[in-house]
């Protein structure tokens, strides 16, 4: 929290300096609140766990967002979240500046939204037609404990491909507002492990380009590379093993919407260099979802997810380094009044390994926002 306060002070100073330019619009402040509460059975297979050791299927989240326009082209944005009545956390806190009025070029600095992919920038409650997070974008890896990767000698849960529950700290630039858009960011952590404090002196460079050939169709391609091992771990490695500690990821995403339909798909290929292995550990995640409004205020949605892993050679032969997972999820969403959404979703998970290999979950969720 102290770091967040310092960051907010610094961003205010930046924004105030940039805001000295003439303003043609009144300053305005917008506040948003989103409350979501999901009730479901215990997820013994840890298929839906977030980065804070909670299951998305049994999650109450309060999210407060704010956008303060200090001047015509300068805004401060922030989000604070509380999950299951735990400690509130700063999820986003950044300044947005448009240096030139007539150019679609924006710079954001602070605890910023990721430029990689598409899902991580969507609001969880209202923009997610179902309840679960895609397998590519969960908050943590599986419950399997790994001895390193976080600069901690104690075993911790593994890493996700993309951590959708935390954002990274850094600076990003975005250009374009028509058919072509491009974004690039330089941040402290990596897609798997976004950070406020840099723990290894490395930086992640990530970028995304998007093409909108027709209204309603968005095609995106992303890439990212950054060091994910902490300084402590790197220091414990033999000298010849150092320098092999990057996460590299590539992604493609698609969104097509028309009439009552929205179709979205995203595929992410990630590989982590591991100093003690000759070959990198790779994972491929794929998700495809669709939403169709069947009546005013009522929609049906479905999602297919898969997460697969590359193979390594071990004592038992050539095996996948983690257990591949498949998931289907389908559900209904009903909006009785504006700003209230009730979801019911059935999720079925299969994993090719581990103690719990199959798990079905029927979950309901209430989302309220204004």
């Amino acid at each position, binding site marked *: 929290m102290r770091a967040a306060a310092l960051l907010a002070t610094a961003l205010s100073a930046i924004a105030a300096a940039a805001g000295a330019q003439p303003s043609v619009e009144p300053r305005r402040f*917008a506040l*948003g609140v989103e409350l979501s509460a999901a009730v479901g059975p215990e997820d013994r297979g840890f298929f839906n766990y977030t980065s804070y050791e909670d299951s998305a299927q049994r999650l109450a989240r309060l999210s407060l967002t704010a956008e303060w326009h200090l001047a015509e082209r300068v805004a401060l944005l922030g*989000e604070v979240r509380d999950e299951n009545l735990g400690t509130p956390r700063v999820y986003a806190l950044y300044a947005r500046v448009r240096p030139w009025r007539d150019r679609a070029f924006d710079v954001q600095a602070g605890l910023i*939204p990721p430029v990689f992919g598409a899902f991580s920038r969507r609001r969880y409650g209202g923009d997610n037609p179902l309840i679960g997070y895609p397998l590519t974008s969960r908050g943590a890896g599986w419950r399997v404990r790994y001895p390193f990767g976080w600069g901690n000698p104690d075993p911790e849960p593994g890493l996700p491909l993309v951590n959708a529950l935390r954002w990274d700290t850094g600076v990003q630039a975005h250009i374009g507002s028509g058919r072509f858009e491009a974004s690039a960011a330089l941040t402290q952590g990596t897609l798997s492990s976004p950070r406020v404090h840099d723990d290894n002196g490395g930086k992640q460079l990530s970028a995304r380009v998007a093409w909108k050939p027709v209204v*309603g169709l968005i095609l995106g391609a992303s890439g990212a590379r950054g060091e994910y091992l902490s300084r402590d771990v790197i220091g414990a490695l033999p000298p010849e093993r150092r320098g092999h500690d990057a996460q590299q990821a590539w992604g493609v995403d698609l969104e097509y919407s028309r*009439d009552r339909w929205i179709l979205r798909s995203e595929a992410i290929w990630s590989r982590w260099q591991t100093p003690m292995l000759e070959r990198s550990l790779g994972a491929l995640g794929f998700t495809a979802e669709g939403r169709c409004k069947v009546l005013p205020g009522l929609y049906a949605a479905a999602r297919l997810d898969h997460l697969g892993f590359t193979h390594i050679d071990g004592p038992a032969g050539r095996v996948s380094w983690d257990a591949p997972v498949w998931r289907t999820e389908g559900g209904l969403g009903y909006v009785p*009044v*504006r700003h209230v959404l009730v979801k019911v979703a059935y999720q079925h998970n299969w994993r090719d390994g581990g103690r719990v290999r199959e798990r079905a979950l029927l979950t309901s969720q209430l989302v309220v926002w204004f």
Partner: protein
Amino acid sequence: MRAARLPLLALAVAAGTAAPRVAGAAAGSIRGRVEVTREPPAPQARPSIGELSMAPPRDLPNRRRSVVYLEAAPQGAFEEHEGRAIMDQRHETFVPYVLAVTVGTTVDFTNSDRTYHNVFSLSKPRRFDLGRYATGQSKSVRFDRPGVVRVFCEIHSHMSAFILVFAHRFFATTDADGRYRIDNVPPGAYTIVAWNDGEARETRTVRMGEDGGVMEQDFVVR
């Protein structure tokens, strides 16, 4: 803001002593001005936390425009109406912000923006969802029940508008100067209402004389 209400739009003929008469009497007009002194708050979009750029400029809706109407309409005023009206979507704003129509009117929701819009309403008099459609396209909704229909865009949270559906034709929307005029009002006692931005702001009783004429009724909405 209080819930949008227009409870008596659906009223049929006023009964009893207040029942206005139509036959054999001269119809008059009610005109005046609605001065809106309150400063309507600008519609706010939800904070754009997940965006990578500034939102494009958009127009502000004209929330000073009001509707003046008679709460109880004279006998014979309920003729069938098959009109058409347009509510455009332009610079992420519904234009007009307030549309007053009679029952049976079909409203065309045109899209003049370069982005998708998704018009919908969950109001009881008319629930609909037009889905997403692009620039240059239009979708229509017929309004067959009187009442207030609140209209939104599913994609742009700051977009909203009102459609007031009347069972009679004794209503008028104010012009840019706040002026209105309701013609062909038969003699009788009426309740006249000034409605602005989701609420009936002022209600008063008026009496149209047997010889018709023009009656002045000004309102101040604070």
